[in-house]
């Protein structure tokens, strides 16, 4: 399998597995995996790339008549291969808890006190989110994950106005619940 010391520049548009340079596609795969991959997993980068490549081949074989691969498909394969590896290693406890699972979420671990408080808040959020009305809870969850009302409405299959209302009411419920747990402004 060819390898490149540096990844080629990202290329928009579809990739053709049967015609394009495999190194080009592999480079794009590696670039996408790097986006998702925690730093502590970087030593496993080539393993993940290889696993993703196999997935990509498999996907191509399932779609023989259409050998072209969209950039979004490559990103999806890269994401799934990376998360599978994260999950596998976490199950084996090869990633210590201080490392965190997803690198961007591990920032709080730099400060143990903040990490403990973050965990406390997270658990309170979990408890509160599971205790409020289902639809409100779903809308608020997506809101906390950074989705706009429009996006949340599309994902959940509701109208924007309904979703907005659910977010507002859900946040009010959440606030009350957190206050009951002693987290009050």
């Amino acid at each position, binding site marked *: 399998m060819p390898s490149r010391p540096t990844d080629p520049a990202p290329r928009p548009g579809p990739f053709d597995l049967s015609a394009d340079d495999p190194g080009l596609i592999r480079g794009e795969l590696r670039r996408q995996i790097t*986006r*998702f991959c925690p730093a502590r997993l970087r030593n496993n980068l080539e393993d993940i790339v290889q696993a993703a490549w196999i997935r990509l081949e498999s996907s191509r074989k399932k779609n023989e008549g259409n050998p072209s691969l969209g950039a*979004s498909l490559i990103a*999806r394969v890269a*994401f*799934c291969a990376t*998360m599978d590896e*994260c*999950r596998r290693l*976490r*199950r084996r406890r090869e990633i210590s*808890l201080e490392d*965190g*699972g*997803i690198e*961007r*979420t*591990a920032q*709080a671990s730099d400060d143990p*006190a*903040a*990490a403990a*408080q*973050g*965990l406390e*808040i*997270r*658990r309170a*959020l*979990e408890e509160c*989110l*599971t205790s409020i009305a*289902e639809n409100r*809870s*779903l809308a608020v*969850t*997506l*809101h*906390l*994950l*950074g*989705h*706009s*009302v429009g*996006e949340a409405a599309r*994902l*959940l*299959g509701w109208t924007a*106005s309904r979703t*907005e209302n659910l977010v*507002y*009411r859900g*946040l*009010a419920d*959440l*606030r009350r619940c957190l206050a009951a747990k*002693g*987290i*009050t*402004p």
Partner: protein
Amino acid sequence: MKDDASVVEALRRAFVFHPDVPDSKASCPEPEQIWDAAHGDLDPSQTREVVGHLRGCASCAAEWSAAMGEREEPAEMNRAALAARRPIPPRRGLPTRWAWAAAAALLIVAAGGLAILVQRPFGTSDTSGSRTGAETGVRPLVADGETLPRERFLLRWEPVEEGALYSVKLFRPNLTPVSQARNLQQPEWLVPVETLSDLPSGETLAWRVEVQLVDGRRLMSGAFLVRLE
């Protein structure tokens, strides 16, 4: 002192925080499902199942967050809240500053411009706050803290542009919705008297306006204060 943006970010970080609990449970959705749900490629009912799982599974929530990729822009509701750009004052008697920050973030997100109300007494004449909605071009024609009669509780504001539609929400100080109106063509709303019947005299309420511009964009005002006679 953290500003509003960092507080909101702290809350989000808390939500995708990776706790010291066993994860990747057998019930966890496959990464493919998480990716597809986050990108709108799943049926909404399936997406709701996945999102329901995220509430109690920090690792999957973190994966969802990663699947969303690099999102530089906060959600639109947060933008309205962040527009206030007002630092959150420290409070005493709280478990931790972080806990306060996260809780304050909830308040800010929930209330949008109402966060400003929490930071100052109701009914004062201070108009220096950014809740006047100047950021969105919505200027109230009801004076700050003005007392309005129950029978003619008329909220008015300057028109933003011809053809714009307005939606208005009226809240109690505890953020309980009192009443709302949608798609108003005129920049005013006479609040139905029956929706005010249970409120005590002297109650201070907050209202905010969402504007749908002709080109489809939506703008959200800050929160304005008004008192019930």
